[in-house]
């Protein structure tokens, strides 16, 4: 059980939750399985790490259904069950970083950017963040990144310009990530973070299988981060 330090609504239906967390080291792009209920709903919910520093773990999540609605009701001082960190996470890179996030898909990109800039203070990190309507946590990105482009209501990929010195990491609706994969030149590495319905989160149920160029992979264990050419036709 983890203690909730804060669970705050940033925009209608967009929550940020911070927990006291001492257990393990956490890498950008990893996720936890959350639950704050007994048998209903049955499954735990996969949520990416929005930020992590020793002692503190944050999530940024959108209220979409039953599980996230329950999470929303939690208050600081309540506890919840978390399992993780799970998944491979984003790789360490030695180029500049370009992150492209759509909607709640920006969640795993913040810790990614912060960690990258901490380890590589002299490298550049640029961000394109797209929102359907009210943006959120953009100041957090602005405080970290060298450049942040925010797009509200439009198509984020229309804005994107890149150069060969960057590696691209993206998370958002699949249609957006596919578009990103299309427009970024082949010479640039593009990593995409996938979603799938998950039961176990640890590779045991095969419920999150996705077809890749190298056979079936488990989004929870082999992913959620994949090279674009492994999972999309580009």
């Amino acid at each position, binding site marked *: 059980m983890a203690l909730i330090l804060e669970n705050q609504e940033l925009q209608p239906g967009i929550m940020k939750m911070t927990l006291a967390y001492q257990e393990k080291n956490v890498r950008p792009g990893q996720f936890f399985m959350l639950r704050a209920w007994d048998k209903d709903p049955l499954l735990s919910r996969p949520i990416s790490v929005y930020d992590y520093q020793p002692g503190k773990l944050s999530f940024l999540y959108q209220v979409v259904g039953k599980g996230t609605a329950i999470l929303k009701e939690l208050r600081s001082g309540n506890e919840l069950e978390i399992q993780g960190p799970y998944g491979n996470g984003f790789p360490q890179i030695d180029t500049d970083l370009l992150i492209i996030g759509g909607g709640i898909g920006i969640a795993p990109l913040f810790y990614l950017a912060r960690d990258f800039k901490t380890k590589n203070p002299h490298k550049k990190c640029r961000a394109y963040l797209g929102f359907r309507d009210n943006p959120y946590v953009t100041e957090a990105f602005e405080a970290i990144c060298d450049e942040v482009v925010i797009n509200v209501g439009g198509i984020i990929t229309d804005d994107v310009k890149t150069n060969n010195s960057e590696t691209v990491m993206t998370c958002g609706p699949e249609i957006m990530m596919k578009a990103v994969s299309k427009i970024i030149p082949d010479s640039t590495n593009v990593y995409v973070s996938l979603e799938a*319905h998950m039961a176990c989160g640890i590779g045991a149920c095969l419920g999150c299988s996705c077809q890749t160029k190298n056979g079936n992979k488990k989004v929870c264990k082999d992913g959620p981060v994949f090279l674009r050419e492994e999972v999309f036709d580009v």
Partner: protein
Amino acid sequence: MSNPLMTKFNGIEFKNPVIPASGTFGFGREYEAFYDLNSLGGLCTKGLTLEARPGNNGMRLWETPAGLMNSIGLENPGMDAFIKNEWPHLKNLEAVTIINVGGKDESSYLEAIEKLNDLDVQLIELNISCPNVKAGGMAYGIKASMAEDITKKVVAVSKHPIMVKLSPNGESITDIAKACESAGATGLSLINTVQGMAIDYKKKKAVFDNLYAGLSGPAVKPIALRMAHQVCRAVNIPVMAMGGISDWQDALEFIMVGATCIQIGTVNFNHPKAAIEMIAGLEKYCHDEGLKNISEVRGII
């Protein structure tokens, strides 16, 4: 003091009657992060088929009230890859490894079973009840005559004891159980998932590419308990019962209706330490009730 959970299943010794169910426990490795596999009575492998199978396309999991629907479609590495990559790890466990075998037709069952003849396997679970593959699978498990026929043939070629896993979707489960018994099965396990359907009304489409999928979890427990009770009364071979077991109390109920061992599936997902907590709970129960062995309450209902 002797172990009150020690259980014999047709001669095979299980340290306790708690066994993670096929398809919910991979080949065990993933759960080593949560506990020592040797604290289990046994474990059951993901369903294996002769050839590797990629499993089903499209959505594979769907949550329902107190239930889980799955349409994995027996994704597995195939028998040869299993023997090469997983068996060396499993064969050294103290916990009994039960190998779950599926098939799409008679010859694929028999060939898969034969490949196991050279290994030192204690128990095979013959899956004639998977609702998620089109050819074979459940087809064998819904008619007593077909279940009897395939069981007979498998028993004939196998050097190892065969436990047949029954479907809740067929004709009278007691008829099928008796047919498998008379065909030479060493034991029975039940239930596999219950065939169900899910709709995404917004998309105006069935959720699963296969249309139907298998329902498991607490939602099906009352059905599983009824079938376990029926089957335990109908046959003289031991039964491993499952279906919605979430805690030691649930496990105990299945033992009270006559199950020798119990398997746990879906609960491994939402509560990865479920098995060891169940074992501890059953142990404490025996202690509190002054039972020398859990068998003293087996079949009392």
